[in-house]
């Protein structure tokens, strides 16, 4: 099947399948995605081969001396995967018995061992004196395939060995193990220090780590880790067995925390893959400012302000760099408050580079959508949490409902700051340790446990005040010892963790995924309807369009953008020209696709004109406000206004070219602010609001040509409404001050008339549109069915001729009045009335000639005079043009049609990425197997009691 077919197939499936309207959590994930999720691999890793295998670890060299554990006695059965650059394994019975995801570059040698059994036996030697013996338990051909794939993928990794050496130097574990070996060999502490350099680390090295090292048994934890690292490989070559998970649950030692975080969440793979990106981003964007950089600057001093490093320039600069680099890399997310707290926490333990990638992994994968522009992921997860509370603690849930305490408001900061602004930092760090390993389910498990542990007190609480007080008190007493029946007292925090992972261990990834799917549509729909209301409320007031029309404009604006669903918070941006053409096609009758193809429409000078004229920011794109404003003007049925608007639209460009003053760079590039005295009556002072030095508020949003008498009560401008009451006269004077229409302009206007009146001069689908003059003429025939058709046809013919004649005479009169030589009558004689287009062409030549000579122009009063002299043109401005604004009612985002179309678009995009993978020789999708794998995760957590051990 070709890729186009696949896309077609997918699209049609999606259109048929109603359950697939939502795209984030309800769709079926591909096996590749599931693999990446399971091992936190970077894109585009995918399954190259997969076999059932038995694996045994054999420590070599000095490691063999250290390996006393039973970890090395038996073979463990499980599944072995091969992707482009990783070798992965996960044991069957309990994934935590043995699991690894080794970059192939950490493999030193693979040896095939002759064997009598049916197994294929491979000895895989890793760079860190660890050997993995693999017995592949498949039929012969599969075994062979696996081996040949492995060897070819290994060959591809050879060039990466240098990268590996570089990154290995950045791991603290490398230093730790190496120095331990040297010490054992008899070197003194000083000798070791002289021989080895400590890899760069987080701010904690210099400024101290939060918490009491003695209390947290820092030294004994370090010793346990050293033991583990000695025999199980380290950093990229680390294999995970039960002890590894236990060591994380009891809390990471400070020196290793940053490294284990990046290993657990997989950000280390990104750092390895794009080792130069962080520095490059900073360099590329140096000294650029965006909204994100401004927001970051506001919060820098407010990120863990009590921690010493963040009172120093060094710490603050690091934090600034990490956050801004992230905003450059993911402008869609930019910066969200709480990311400062998260990044500040990471930087205590990680280098900038490490923290940058770990932050990315958190924002992008572990906590999807939490920090997006609409924060949909956060809102979604609060819904999920509420549902889980309702399911697991119905009595408490009912109580909270009864006393009207909004749980999600209370829990939202827990999730967003990873508990760092609710719990004392040393405890939040313990939660983060496990979060990095197990993902977002940990946030839920801990939240549920917090409620469970406090449920008695919460049941007594009758209002927000009491509930908040209970929780606040609880968080401050996490370190207190709880009287326990056993002889070993445990702290509140230990009890919390046991409750979280024992009692709520059943809340697994699948459960959360499913609930997210359930609420996704509701949450995103709510966000979208809120943003719609907000966006529309913030638009300048319209005078000719009613609110329903404005709503329709909103819809067609976003449809024309073909935006990602706004609820997901991507940068939706503004209409580019080609999108504007579609937008106009939905908004005015003369751009209806039945009259004009999109290609033709794109080349219409009048469409260009409108785009340019509406683009008051001069950015080459239109905001929603620009579009609403522009259509509102077109829909104005006051003939004088309408004529003025048209006139100004054609004259404005002249101004822009000739009078734009370079002296005031902050002036919004509105083409129509003349420097005449009357400008003083404009409400908006021409100062940019973003300029902190601007002495007062000016235009917040220069969406409207400042001269408009119609829309002046724009939100931002009405700050100065006292002075903004202006008479029509002043506006007319303003326009009068403009230089006037050139011959070229006049011809362009004629061309625009022809184009915009096409519905009245051309039949489409056999039917005709009549203007009010024609309707008047037709009236006597309404009751005469026998001759009605004939009359209609005749009147229609007359109408067509009338329009052409009007345009023709418009040109002639304009030229006469403006005194543009004597060209006009000549043209009139030369061209037949019906061939107005050639008239225009001829006129152009003459106009060019005329423009070369004298600078004669048609002034507004004259333009008006010419228009009003012609019945059809008068009608054009008073009726035809205003009534051509007919915004088609389109389905809102929430309604199936559009909604599904969007999901098709989204999925096609995603499918495209997957297809690219497939084209690179990726294994076929094995959907059935993927389903099998989903259930593999039902593990029993036996060792929770270990949480209490230190």
């Amino acid at each position, binding site marked *: 099947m070709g890729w186009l077919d696949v896309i077609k197939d997918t699209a049609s499936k999606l259109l048929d399948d109603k359950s697939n309207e939502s795209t984030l959590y309800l769709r079926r994930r591909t096996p590749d995605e599931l693999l990446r999720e399971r091992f936190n691999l970077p894109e585009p890793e995918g399954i190259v081969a997969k076999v059932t295998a038995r694996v045994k670890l054999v420590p070599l060299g000095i490691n063999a001396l250290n390996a006393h554990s039973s970890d090395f006695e038996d073979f463990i059965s499980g599944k072995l995967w091969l992707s482009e650059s990783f070798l992965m394994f996960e044991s069957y019975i309990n994934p935590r018995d043995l699991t690894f995801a080794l970059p192939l570059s950490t493999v030193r040698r693979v040896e095939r061992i002759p064997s009598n059994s049916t197994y294929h036996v491979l000895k895989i030697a890793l760079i860190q004196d660890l050997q993995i013996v693999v017995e592949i338990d498949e039929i012969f051909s599969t075994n062979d395939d696996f081996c040949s794939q492995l060897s070819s993928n290994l060959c591809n990794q050879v060039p990466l060995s240098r990268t590996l050496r570089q990154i290995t130097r950045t791991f603290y574990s490398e230093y730790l193990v190496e120095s331990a070996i040297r010490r054992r060999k008899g070197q003194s502490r000083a000798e070791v220090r002289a021989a080895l350099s400590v890899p760069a680390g987080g701010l904690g090295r210099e400024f101290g780590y939060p918490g009491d090292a003695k209390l947290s048994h820092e030294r004994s934890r370090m010793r346990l880790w050293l033991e583990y690292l000695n025999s199980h490989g380290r950093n990229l070559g680390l294999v995970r067995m039960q002890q590894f998970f236990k060591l994380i649950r009891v809390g990471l030692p400070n020196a290793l925390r940053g490294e284990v975080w990046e290993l657990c969440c997989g950000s280390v793979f990104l750092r390895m893959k794009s080792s130069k990106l962080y520095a490059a981003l900073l360099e590329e964007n140096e000294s650029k400012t965006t909204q994100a950089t401004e927001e970051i600057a506001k919060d820098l*001093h407010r990120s863990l302000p009590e921690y010493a490093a963040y009172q120093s320039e060094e710490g603050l600069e690091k934090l600034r760099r990490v956050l801004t680099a992230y905003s450059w890399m993911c402008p869609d997310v930019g910066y969200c408050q709480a990311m400062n707290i998260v990044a500040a926490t990471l930087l205590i333990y990680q280098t900038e580079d490490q923290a940058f990638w770990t932050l990315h992994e958190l924002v992008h994968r572990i906590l999807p959508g939490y920090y997006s522009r609409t924060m949909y992921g956060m809102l979604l997860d609060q819904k999920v949490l509420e549902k889980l509370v309702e399911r697991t603690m119905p009595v408490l849930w009912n109580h909270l409902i009864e006393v009207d305490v909004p749980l999600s408001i209370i829990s939202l900061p827990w999730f967003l700051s990873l508990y760092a602004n609710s719990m004392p930092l040393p405890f939040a760090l313990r939660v983060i340790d496990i979060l990095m390993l197990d993902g977002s389910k940990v946030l839920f498990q801990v939240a549920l446990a917090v409620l469970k542990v406090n449920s008695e007190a919460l049941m007594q609480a009758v209002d927000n005040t009491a509930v908040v007080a209970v929780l606040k008190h609880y968080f401050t007493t996490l370190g207190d010892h709880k009287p326990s029946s056993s002889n070993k007292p445990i702290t509140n925090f230990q009890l919390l963790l046991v409750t979280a992972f024992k009692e709520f261990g059943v809340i697994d990834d699948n459960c959360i995924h499913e609930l997210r799917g359930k609420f996704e549509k509701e949450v995103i729909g709510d966000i979208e309807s809120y943003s719609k209301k907000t966006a529309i409320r913030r638009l300048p007031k319209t005078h000719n369009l009613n609110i329903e029309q404005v709503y329709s404009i909103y819809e067609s604006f976003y449809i024309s953008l073909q935006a990602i669903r706004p609820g997901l918070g991507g940068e939706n941006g503004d209409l580019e020209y080609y999108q504007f053409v579609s937008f106009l096609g939905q908004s005015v009758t003369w751009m209806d696709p039945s009259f004009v193809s999109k290609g033709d429409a794109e080349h219409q000078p009048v469409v260009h004109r409108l785009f340019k004229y509406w683009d008051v920011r001069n950015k080459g794109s239109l905001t929603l406000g620009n579009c609403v404003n522009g259509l509102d003007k077109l829909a104005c049925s006051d003939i004088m206004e309408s004529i003025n608007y048209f006139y100004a639209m054609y004259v404005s460009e002249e101004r822009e070219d000739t009078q734009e003053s370079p002296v005031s760079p902050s002036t919004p590039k509105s083409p129509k602010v003349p420097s005449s005295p009357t400008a003083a009556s404009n409400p908006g002072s021409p100062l940019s609001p973003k300029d902190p030095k601007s*002495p007062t508020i000016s235009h917040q949003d220069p969406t409207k040509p400042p001269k408009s008498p119609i829309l002046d009560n724009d939100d931002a401008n009405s700050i100065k409404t006292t002075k903004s009451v202006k008479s029509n006269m002043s506006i007319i004077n303003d326009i009068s001050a403009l230089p006037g229409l050139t011959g070229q302009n006049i011809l362009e206007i004629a061309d625009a008339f022809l184009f915009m009146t096409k519905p009245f001069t051309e039949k489409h689908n056999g039917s005709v549109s009549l203007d009010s003059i024609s309707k008047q003429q037709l009236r006597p025939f309404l009751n005469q069915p026998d001759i009605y058709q004939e009359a209609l046809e005749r009147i229609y013919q007359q109408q067509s001729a009338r329009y052409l004649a009007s345009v023709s005479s418009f040109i002639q009169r304009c030229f006469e009045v403006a005194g543009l030589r004597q060209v006009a009558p000549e043209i009139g004689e030369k061209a037949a009335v019906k061939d107005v287009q050639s008239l225009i062409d001829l006129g152009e030549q003459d106009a060019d000639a005329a423009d070369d000579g004298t600078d004669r122009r048609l002034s507004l009063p004259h333009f008006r005079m010419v228009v009003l002299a012609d019945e059809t043109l008068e009608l054009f401005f008073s009726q035809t043009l205003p009534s051509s604004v007919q915004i088609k009612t389109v389905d809102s985002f929430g309604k199936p049609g559009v909604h599904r179309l969007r999901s098709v678009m989204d999925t096609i995009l995603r499918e495209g990425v997957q297809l690219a993978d497939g084209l690179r020789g990726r294994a076929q999708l094995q959907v059935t197997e993927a389903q099998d794998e989903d259930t593999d995760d039902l593990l029993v957590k036996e060792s929770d009691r270990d949480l209490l051990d230190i």
Partner: protein
Amino acid sequence: MEASKTTTSVKLVLLGEAAVGKSSLVLRFVSDEFQENKEPTIGAAFLTQKCQLSNRTVKFEIWDTAGQERFASLAPMYYRNAQAAVVVYDVTKPPTFIRARHWVNELKTQGSPNIIIALVANKHDLTGEDEEGEAGPVKPDVEDETGSSIVGRKVAYSDGQKLAEDEGLLFFEASAKTGMNVRKIFLAIANKIPIENKTPNQSNRAGANETVDVGMNSSQAANCQC
């Protein structure tokens, strides 16, 4: 004597652009403290404080919200059923005033009917003006002799006052840092809370430290700007 007063609970929400000082105003009101470099509010924070009026006690249940634009879509959760709102802007930052105007519009259209809104121009201390004196003109930033910059007032008093008049809001210029007018804001709101909206007497639960000393004449506070 206190026990004989009725207590009215009032849900109040604070809204406004990031870093205009919403949390600082609340902190000043609740604990009479001021912190430089306060951590940004994540989502929302909840605090309570009581105001003693001559005939009753008003207990404010305050939802202090995050100011960053993207948190705006959470706002309806926070102002749901709120009887009062304090919309804050920074007198030295014009864009924050525009944002305040947006909040006022949103509250008027989406908030509870009859919600009492106070518009507050915070950071008055930065203008260098006398607290008691007339509001000065809009001024550019300047450097004083020592080279440190003085931020001028950037939003005219009349701009705030005009918005308040147009929309029927209470209006104050205040400073969480110096404490200027902070209590007045909440007192004025308390005075506008209708009496019928009462809950069972809870005043005995109030800790002494929680109570605002309303030694200042509340009638005067109630009169200002209303």
